[in-house]
């Protein structure tokens, strides 16, 4: 009987500890969050200067990728335009269009 009671006690204590840990953790987390939120709102209120930048790592990587792709696209387009320029200049010098009119 005693043994059973002891076991129950240890068991319930364990469960309590477990839950209390969660409880503590939950409370703690909430407090931290609140503190952080307070800090953020304070920071926002005290914000002397807003320095814009990408919000998170995802956005900043997105931007780097965009810049790289943009320059690649520009280089490709310039290459195509160079070919086009050569072609239209050639057509102009052999008087392709004016010959056709006559």
């Amino acid at each position, binding site marked *: 009987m005693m043994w059973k009671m002891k076991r129950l006690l240890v068991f319930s204590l364990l469960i309590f500890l477990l839950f209390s840990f969660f409880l503590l953790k939950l409370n703690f987390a909430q407090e931290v969050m609140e503190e952080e939120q307070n800090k953020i709102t304070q920071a926002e209120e005290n914000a002397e200067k*807003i320095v814009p930048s990408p919000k998170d790592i995802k956005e900043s990587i997105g*931007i780097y990728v965009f810049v790289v792709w*943009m320059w690649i696209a*520009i280089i490709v387009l*310039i290459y195509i335009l160079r070919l*086009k*320029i050569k072609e239209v200049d050639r057509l102009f010098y052999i008087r392709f*269009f004016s010959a056709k009119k006559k």
Partner: protein
Amino acid sequence: MNLLGKKKRAQSWFDERFGISGIVKFLREKKIPQHKHSLWYYTGSAIMLFFVIQVITGFMLVFYYNPTLAEANKSVGRIMTEIPMGWIIRSIHSWSSSFMIAFVFIHLLSIWITKAYRKPRELTWMSGVFLLCVTLAFGFTGYLLPWDDLSLSATKVGTDIPRSIPIVGVWVTKLLRGGEDVTGDTLTRFFGFHVCILPVFIFILLAVHVYLIQKQGMSLPLAVESKKEKIQELPFWPNFVYRESVVWLILLGILFTVAIFLPPSLDKSADLMAPAPEGIRPEWYFLFLFQALKIFPAKILFINGDTFIVILILVEFLLFFFLPFLDNKPAEIKGKFITFLAYVTIVYAVVMTVWSLL
């Protein structure tokens, strides 16, 4: 009927009513001379590119911007922090304005030095001078809109400068400020200038400017013209447009890269009662004027230093405006002296700007 036929029919339908083929024919026949100074011909279209970017990003910003005393700074802050991609749009608007004004200066100086304002292009030059004023006014009014400490002080100084003009000055200041002092009314008024009044003027002036250029064709620099050789020419469409596209693409790439990596920041909302912060500074294109105001003494020959500067600026502006008539013999000593003045102006502006940054 096949698709091509339909397209042809639609084209001829519009052509009958619009006369597009006339424009296309004109553009094909428009010739751009090719010589060693041809590079300057690209500056005009570069300005146009940045102007178009300004219009588009401006439309976007106005969706969220709020031109009132309480909300202006907050709404810009909101654009920069909450609105997705807002900080990039603002950054592009801000950088593109700087690029545009830089190219306006380059365009203007190139025309001054190559003397492209010679007869019959006097009116083109004059409309250009007005365009310069409107562009600078865009820059000046736009600088106030974020309503932070820097922009408030810059606007206070900028709107107080006309006060020194005899007789009308006080009224000009009042008109700009919407009252005796810079207040929330000034902000709303500047917003009105920036998005309503100045755009109307710039579109009219641009139309006149571009029409005159098309009517008279491209100017040849004096040095090239006097050689009397046959100059190589290229059609505007498509040969020159392709070349311009290359320039546009490069400029766009530079603009976006700079705008993404160096976005402008936003100070806290301006306080009308707070003292001016240390190190106030206008936009870079007004720095030469700012430095002049700083170093001029309080009194010169019985008049105020700033009255003196304002009168000086007005006289210079009038001379500048009537430059095509003053420079009526460009090849002779007078013309050479006027070209020399252009270089002096560049040196003066650069020295003053660098000095103000020290």
